């Protein structure tokens, strides 16, 4: 992906967008976690899947419809990057294994990959059609 080269203003916008994305992620994971009893971290999966869908749309719009690098930087690298997380997902997998939920750990890791790549691929495919 080619985002615009960083100017101070653009870097600040990317940072703010990343902060907003992180807050949205924390709220969603917190509230979804409160409503579920099983050990699967569904909140993180929903966050990562929806973020992959949005970044796929932006990437496709940049590839096929000339969306500018500044938008890709702020909404893609900033918002989607701050919103989605790999560190929490990998921690959750190891935590599932440590607490004896081995099957859930495998389902969560592979399921996340399939859902997120599926969302990104569907979004990029969609932008190629419109």
């Amino acid at each position, binding site marked *: 992906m080619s985002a615009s080269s960083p100017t101070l203003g653009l870097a600040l916008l990317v940072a703010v967008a*990343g902060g907003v994305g992180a807050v949205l992620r924390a709220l969603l994971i917190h509230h979804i976690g409160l409503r579920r009893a*099983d050990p699967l971290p569904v909140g993180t999966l929903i966050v990562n899947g929806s973020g992959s869908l*949005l970044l*796929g749309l932006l990437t496709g719009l940049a590839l096929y419809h000339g969306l500018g690098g500044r938008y890709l930087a702020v909404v893609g690298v900033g918002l989607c990057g701050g919103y989605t997380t790999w560190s929490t997902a990998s921690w959750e997998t190891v935590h599932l294994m440590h607490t004896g939920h081995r099957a859930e750990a495998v389902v969560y890791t592979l399921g996340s990959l399939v859902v997120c790549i599926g969302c990104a691929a569907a979004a990029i495919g969609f932008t190629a059609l419109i």
Partner: protein
Amino acid sequence: MDTSPPHETPDGHDASSAAHELLNQEGERDLLDEPVLPLLGLSGGTLAAVFFGGALGTLARYLLEAHHQTGSGGFPWVTLLVNLTGSLAIGFLVPLTEHAAPRAPLLRPLVLVGFLGGWTTYSTLAVEATLLGKNGDLTTCLAYLVATVVGGLALVVLGHAAGRKVMSS
């Protein structure tokens, strides 16, 4: 989510940390430490800490990506580096911050949820894997995914072991 707090493994804990976990069971459903505001469920201080940590982590990743752009079809080294270092850091910092959490309740929201969440990314991982697959670079795509998943999980385990060793010494 489990009723046990998912931020720390229950195996091999001493009585004080078990008591700490019991005290915090109500609120600790994720890496954050407290339930408060009725609407948002998290305090303004927690959300501000997540915001600043997330902004810093995202900015750091953006500057690294902007100066080391991966060409089309190339191996996504930058995202791999970002995600692997994030895995090592979260594994190491979870045990390190566990006992500090009651005294410094904004530490985990700032560093674990905010900074490391902003520093690492799943959306870029998914889009890069998709573009590699779409361009027919299936070997690179598979190598990238295996390196991220296997490397990431191994580094969480390694970081966690190191963090616990530091805490017990």
